[in-house]
């Protein structure tokens, strides 16, 4: 299963890049002109995201650099220990939805410190791999189309992050602790 999926992932993009233009040419689409026409939109879209992403990154950067993040984590620690969860993985619950690069760095650090095959390393890997950075996704996707009122989208994203985090821990405890 694993080998099959990695193989599929490796082939997917090269095959798409060849197959789409080939099929289009067969359907008599002027492929190069089509490509350029679509590609034109790419630049504007990326530029439109800048204000949104800069705004979000500034706030996150201040929050982290000031030590406010660590302080918040310190308060939450006893709560975690009460549930019998290794408290080392706790920062991930906060970091994961906020910053992709930050939580990846933290996960790598945990793996380096406790080993990839420790329970902590496995939980961290599962948490990191099972979800995307909610705040980044919302900023980029809604920023690109100028949505200012995100409605309930952020709540949905954050709730599913919490569910995913708890699920990751429970699953790892069940699978790996025996």
């Amino acid at each position, binding site marked *: 299963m694993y080998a099959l999926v990695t193989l599929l992932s490796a082939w997917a993009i090269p095959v798409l890049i060849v197959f789409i233009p080939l099929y289009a040419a067969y359907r008599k689409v002027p492929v190069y002109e089509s490509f350029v026409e679509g590609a034109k939109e790419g630049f504007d879209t990326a530029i439109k995201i800048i204000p949104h992403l800069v705004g979000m990154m500034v706030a996150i950067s201040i929050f982290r650099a000031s030590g406010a993040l660590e302080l918040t984590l310190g308060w939450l620690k006893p709560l975690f220990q009460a549930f019998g969860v290794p408290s080392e993985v706790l920062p991930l619950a906060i970091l994961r939805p906020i910053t992709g690069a930050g939580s990846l760095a933290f996960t790598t650090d945990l793996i380096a410190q406790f080993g990839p095959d420790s329970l902590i390393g496995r939980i961290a890997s*599962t948490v990191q791999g099972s979800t995307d950075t909610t705040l980044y996704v919302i900023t980029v996707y809604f920023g690109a189309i100028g949505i200012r009122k995100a409605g309930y989208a952020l709540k949905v994203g954050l709730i*599913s992050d919490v569910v995913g985090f708890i699920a990751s821990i429970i699953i790892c405890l069940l699978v790996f602790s025996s």
Partner: protein
Amino acid sequence: MVNWIWLFFIVTGFIVSAVQGNVEAVTQAAFDGAKSGVTVCFGLISVLVFWLGIMRIAEDAGLLSKLAVLLRPVVRFLFPSIPKDHPALGYIMSNMSANILGLGNAATPMGIKAMQELQKLNPDKDSASPAMCTLLALNTASITLIPTTLIAIRMNYNSVNPAEIVGTTLLATAISTAAAILVDRWYRRKQTLIPTTRG
């Protein structure tokens, strides 16, 4: 809610560094953050230009509508508000497929394109439509079959079985995606019962 989170990050950051007598950290962090925001967007330019070009070819060739037809039952369940044969459906399907295969840099442009198509259907251009919220929920939960980055990191640190987390990750991501879909449904229903514009 975004407004509050944003304000919370900045204000608590300021207070904490002020109390620690380290207020200049705020200035440094603000400009570092701004810089990385721009850097990330610049990194997105190449990916967006390339994939939007390829996807336009696919759209002109009628491939996207084919994909949408193929996966119609799933889409009809998740996005009942989108008219059938609308181009948004093809982009949504491409976005989901790219996510599942772990092709992050292809998934983002396709998702953005799908959002742009959904925006055309959106009566209020400032507020997210229910379909947009659903698409966002699917992307934040992000079903991925193989977490390639993590396997690579685990390999780096000499794991006995770097891929052993594939199963746990898949199960966890399935659960969080199911949660995202359910919570999204719940909010959508609540919103249609009591129409409100509060964010």
